[in-house]
């Protein structure tokens, strides 16, 4: 057998050696130390689970992104798509008698099919945390603050956390005609203001705010501006973000940008949602938010908010 025969690895699989390996272990150590100091207990869930667990947590759209295989008894297994599903399962079963709040964290690989995606890996080294059983601004602030500490712990200095709230656009979207709604969401997602304007030209009331609200991005002043243009139903979400902003220190605020244009998590998130961006990485290096419906799907309804950072993207960023 020639060496070239054993050199072949599946697309999206990579060996990490030397500094690439050392850097990742250093990032894991630094972040787990921050998490432990914050009172978060580490869990090491299995690398594979019944497929159903990931779909239960993430919704039907994760199915095509699972790396699946069959167990001996014919049941469908999947490699760990995310840690949140396994942690929700543990919180609802093994930890059922624990009194909330639960502070749980993890670090390890997740595995994802990336159909048609040339430049995307199929396994990602993550670190993350889940705060379960508490709701309100204080718990969102705790999680956001933890995210900022994690970002600093991995050596990011010039980073930006874009924070939104699913309640900002939901009331206006609900009033868009049902057959037009998928298109409107797509245009908002793509920041395609031209198509939005044409489709909503004659619209008034709440729907009209979709021409401006999704494009709001900035510091506190942008939020205040959003409050002036937003429909009544969005007031709660914007007040929540204003309260969150007020609770941050000036140093923390320097990293936070409010961004009301994110519609991708509308089915999953129930409150704040955020992404972490840093120069030299072409996509978000971290993401999180509140998903108060998640634990109910595992039979133990309680609020939850969480974050996950992509340590590979952080280790490989170009600047």
């Amino acid at each position, binding site marked *: 057998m020639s060496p070239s025969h054993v050199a072949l690895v599946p697309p999206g699989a990579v060996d990490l050696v030397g500094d690439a390996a050392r850097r990742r272990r250093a990032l894991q150590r630094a972040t787990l130390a921050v998490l432990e100091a914050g009172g978060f207990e580490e869990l090491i869930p299995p690398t594979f689970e019944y497929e159903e667990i990931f779909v239960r947590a993430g919704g039907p759209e994760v199915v095509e992104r699972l790396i699946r295989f069959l167990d001996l008894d014919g049941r469908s297994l999947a490699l760990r798509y995310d840690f949140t599903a396994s942690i929700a399962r543990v919180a609802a079963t093994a930890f059922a008698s624990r009194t909330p709040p639960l502070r749980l964290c993890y670090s390890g690989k997740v595995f994802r099919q990336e159909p*048609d995606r*040339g*430049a995307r890996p199929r396994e990602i080294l993550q670190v993350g945390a889940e705060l379960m059983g508490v709701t309100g601004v204080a718990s969102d602030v705790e999680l956001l603050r933890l995210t900022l500490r994690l970002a600093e712990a991995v050596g990011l200095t010039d980073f*930006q956390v*874009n924070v939104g709230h699913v309640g900002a656009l939901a009331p206006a979207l609900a009033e868009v005609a049902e057959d037009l709604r998928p298109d409107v969401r797509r245009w908002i997602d*793509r*920041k*395609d*203001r*031209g*198509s939005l304007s044409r489709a909503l030209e004659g619209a008034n009331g709440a729907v009209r705010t979709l021409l401006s609200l999704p494009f709001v*991005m*900035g510091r506190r002043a942008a939020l205040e501006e959003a409050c002036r243009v937003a429909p009544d139903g969005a007031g709660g979400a914007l007040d929540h973000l204003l309260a969150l902003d007020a609770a941050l220190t000036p140093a923390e605020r320097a990293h936070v*940008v409010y*961004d009301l244009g994110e519609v991708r998590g509308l089915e999953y998130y129930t409150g704040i949602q955020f*992404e972490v*961006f*840093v*120069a030299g*990485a*072409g*996509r*978000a290096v971290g993401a999180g938010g509140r998903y108060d419906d998640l634990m109910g799907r595992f039979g133990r309804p309680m609020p939850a908010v969480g974050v996950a950072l992509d340590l590979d993207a952080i280790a490989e960023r170009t600047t």
Partner: protein
Amino acid sequence: MSTLRIALAKGRMFDLALERFMKAGITLAGDAGRKLLIPSSDPTIEFLAVKPGDVPIYVESGAADLGVTGTDVLREGNPDVLEPLELGFGHCRLSVASPADAAWPQLPGGITPKIATKYPRLTREHFAAQGRAVDVIRINGSVEVAPLLGLSHWIVDLVDTGHTLEANGLVERDVILRSSAVLVANRASQKLKLDAHLRLLGLLEP
């Protein structure tokens, strides 16, 4: 002000895109000949010339902040990029065409039509939506001669004036998609360099 790198498709769209940027006051400040990175008259903007089909991956990955590509390329590849502005040039349509003397919309004898195209995904989706079975053959060029050479029964290809179809004895049967040039942007770049993106949009907007 942050620097923006804009990926442009070499070929037909390149000059049209430059013309559009020229109207916005941004011109090339170097020879486009062999260089990959071309500075512009605006110190915060540089251009990158790549193969037309590669614009989306450069932008999605963040290697370029923005790019100019066609709706056809975007819908075929479905890259995860922002599409903040239609640029109003490069209008054409993605159409199904078949030989003028061939039966349409069915082939005789229950034969499953073979379709040659550079757009396998859009072609499959189009016929699946109509509940029609087709056999899609992906090729990389000279699509319009595929029926003449016996490679396929029909083709799916971009049509501008229709002259190329006519010259090859083909008739446009059905339009799948109307396409034009679109400015696309990397998601992370748009968030990190918002002011620069907004400034460029302001310059380009009609």
